[in-house]
């Protein structure tokens, strides 16, 4: 069901944990549909120098968090904002269709953390326009016909 890369990131997730003096903290998800993702960034000179995450969710949510943190580490804030869940899923060598939304959670967690960073530092990012970190998105809409 899952690719080898997914299973590797699930089994040995990178960057699990918290950053106590994080510059940015974001949490997304909704326990109602079973998935919560929390991300911590350390940002220096507009560069994400450290990332940690904690995830309550399925295997692909854990793997997506792990992969996404790896992908944004060392990037500028702007570059991190551009990361889409498709890229995360691609790096994971694909996710089952029903599991694509788990990678979206990772994209959203990153945005949420940067939203926090912008708020704290009075910064403006075009990409975050309209972004609502508390939106209760239903990640679990079924493709019922």
């Amino acid at each position, binding site marked *: 069901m899952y690719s080898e890369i997914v299973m590797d990131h699930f089994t040995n997730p990178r960057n*699990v944990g918290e950053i106590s003096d994080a510059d940015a903290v974001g949490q997304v998800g909704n326990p109602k549909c079973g*998935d919560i993702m929390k991300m911590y960034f350390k940002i220096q000179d507009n560069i994400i120098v450290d990332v940690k995450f904690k995830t309550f969710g399925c295997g692909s949510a854990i793997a997506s968090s792990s992969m996404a943190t790896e992908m944004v580490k060392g990037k500028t804030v702007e570059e991190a904002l551009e990361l889409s869940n498709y890229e995360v899923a691609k790096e994971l060598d694909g996710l089952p269709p029903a599991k694509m939304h788990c990678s979206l959670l990772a994209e959203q967690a990153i945005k949420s953390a940067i939203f926090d960073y912008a708020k704290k530092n009075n910064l403006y990012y075009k990409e975050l326009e309209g972004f609502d970190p508390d939106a209760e998105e239903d990640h679990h809409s079924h493709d019922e016909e």
Partner: protein
Amino acid sequence: MKVYLDYSATTPVKPEVFNAMTPYLRDYYGNPSSLHSYGRENKKAIDTARDQIAQTLKAKPEEIFFTGGGSEADNWAIKGTAEALKNKGRHIITTSIEHHAVLHTCQHLEKQGYEVTYLPVNEEGIISVEELKSHLREDTILITIMYANNEIGTIQPIQEIAAIAKEHKVLFHTDAVQAYGHLEINTQDLPVDMISISAHKLYGPKGVGALYIRKGTRIHNLIHGGAQERKKRAGTENIAGIVGFGKAAELAYGQLTEHVNHLTELRDYLLEGIQQKIPYTRLNGHRQKRLPNNVNVSFEFIEGESMLLSLDMVGIAASSGSACTSGSLDPSHVLLSLGLSHEMAHGSLRLTLGDQNTKEEIDYVLEQLPPIVQRLRDMSPLYEN
């Protein structure tokens, strides 16, 4: 080590059952409806299987109708009586913890103009008989309440429910797909009108089940066509499957006590081990009134799928919610009905035991499970050390 602990999802076919089936796949191929000798062999085989199953239920053979599985039996019982009795009334009573084969069928009927009452259950998953009584109406035509639950193993007070149904002259159907093979079901003592059962839950093949219909019960067909099953269920019979079902039923009820004792012992050992070794654990369902093979626990702060994946990687097969619902990502409606929060419902693990399990296997599970739970908790934003 490989440990299969998902017997409530499905069981392996017993070798005796497989051996009973093969001639009907390989050697006898007539259509049982045919007049010639090829057909007759098969007709006899179906009759034998019908007898075997009737005996386990203390029913008459002509009260057993073979179907393509438990889901079809549930659909048939509910739609077939709803349709037959629609001029009498359109109110149905069921529970909020039924299998989807019952629940979705009832929801479908609601769209057709029927009214359905979904009885709640208490924290342990048991309905209140008083509440059932209070919902009975003039136009109630059917009570459909499962014998034992597939997720949490809880056994309902079926005898009392059946008595109430009888007293009020309302038809009573029970989904006994999980109970059958684990509990004595005696249609002579229990005034139930219809019972759904399925072969693959008791070491028989998948894709064959049966509906017990008490003589005289009015019910329309679900599958119209040829004259098979005394004109009540059309379609060329799945003979090998039916033969396997009969054999499996006979075996299960021939050694019921040993089977149940073995399971109960392992179940208690497993449950107690888990509760001892893993903090923040909740037993789902009733401690005593439960199937002998069912352990269902929720581990706070973690989610089910990642637990199943981790277990699978060390060779342990289990489930979270019912197998049939795992295609969906919603938390189990059964666990939510017990009053569990969404997180707790998500963190549930169902371990269901079978004939082949040994104490060594349980020890292996008790060794593997705690670190898995701990690792996932360490990753969880909900868990504070």
